[in-house]
């Protein structure tokens, strides 16, 4: 035990002598080759680590690239959708503009901003009102044909009753034979043509236009075509005729309001 202590003491003394000597004379040992061995080992280790981790890094990089590409594809698809939407809107507005130019009694064009909450299917809210010259009972039409009439108006908005509404009716005329009748909504997607006697000739596909005799709708606006004619006499004087409007009530986005 005593020997160990001496040994330890001598070791400490030697290190102190070494350090004191070096503090006066500078570094004692410059063994660079050990450092260079270690540096080469670092390089080899680095290469080894690289060789092992490179495939994983590449995989991760590919995953990241894949994710980014997918993001880009989604973005491009969205942009394409937006472009298509703009194209369709452009076409629709162009048609509306053409219609507006052809109508002398044009008031204003309006955009549908909502569907009425009381009659979800047959009332539309328009973004134009009294300030824009819109008045009650004015006619709303699209490039396809009659859309309905203005039910009521506020300063900035108006409500449009579609021709499929059960409370809607308008004086119409068969385009070829000039037979007159009244068209009424049914609350579904179709209308019925009333007051056409059995003697009058009418067939499927006949086009109906507004006659203007009701003093509400300007004459000559396309309304719809006859889709079904009931021939059976069921005790009444008039035929039962189903009409499909040219303007589908689900696809209206803009309308033209005319007097």
């Amino acid at each position, binding site marked *: 035990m005593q020997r*160990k202590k001496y*040994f*330890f003491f001598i*070791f*400490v003394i030697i*290190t*102190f002598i*070494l*350090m*004191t000597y*070096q*503090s006066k004379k500078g*570094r*004692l*040992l410059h*063994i660079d080759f*050990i*450092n260079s061995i*270690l540096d080469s*080992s*670092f390089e080899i*280790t680095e290469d080894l680590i690289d060789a092992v981790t490179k495939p994983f890094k590449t995989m991760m990089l590919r995953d990241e690239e894949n994710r980014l590409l997918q993001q880009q594809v989604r973005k491009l698809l969205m942009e394409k959708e937006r472009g298509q939407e703009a194209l369709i809107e452009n076409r629709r507005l162009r048609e509306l503009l053409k219609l507006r130019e052809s109508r002398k009694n044009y008031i204003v064009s309006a955009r549908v901003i909502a569907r009425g909450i009381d009659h979800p299917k047959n009332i539309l809210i328009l973004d134009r009102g009294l300030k824009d010259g819109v008045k009650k009972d004015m006619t709303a039409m699209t490039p396809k044909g009659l859309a309905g009439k203005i039910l009521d108006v506020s300063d900035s908005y108006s409500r449009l009753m579609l021709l499929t509404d059960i409370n809607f009716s308008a004086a119409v005329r068969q385009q070829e034979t000039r037979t007159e009748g009244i068209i009424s909504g049914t609350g579904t997607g179709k209308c019925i043509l009333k007051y056409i006697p059995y003697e009058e000739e009418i067939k499927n596909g006949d086009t109906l236009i507004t006659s203007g005799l009701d003093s509400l709708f300007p004459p000559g606006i396309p309304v719809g075509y006859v889709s079904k004619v009931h021939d059976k006499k069921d005790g009444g004087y008039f035929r039962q005729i189903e009409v499909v409007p040219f303007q589908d009530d689900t696809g209206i986005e803009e309308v033209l309001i005319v007097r």
Partner: protein
Amino acid sequence: MRHFLYWLILIFLSFILQGRLSVIGVPLDLTTLLVYYAGTRYGQTKSLLLGGAIGALEDILSSTILGPNMLAKGIIGFSVPFFTSGGFFRWTPLLGIIAVSFFTLIDNTIVFLARSLFDTMPTAISNALFIAIMQSLLNAPAGIFIRPEHAD
């Protein structure tokens, strides 16, 4: 000869890893762990010599004066058997943790003081303290696994 090679590989690996691994900028102090391991396996004289040799090599590799690490590792090599021989303390994993942390702290302190006295101050005191504490914490878990032979 086999024993010598085994230690040579261990020392070499610890230097390589020490140069590569760091936690929040603080390098690991694996050489101290190596000396601690030697202290748990061999007697005081052998551990002192091995510690001194490892320290000397570390001094040479760090391109500073020869001595600070040599002294620190030698002291640790000499002191570890006293802790872990079972004569004074009974070895438990907790004692292992405390011993490793303590010796890492001692190693850092001796190296810092020796360099400051005989060469130039290697870093600011606060930074030296931070490094010493971090290395003690990082080395601490090794105290559970480096068990003296008589512990079982």
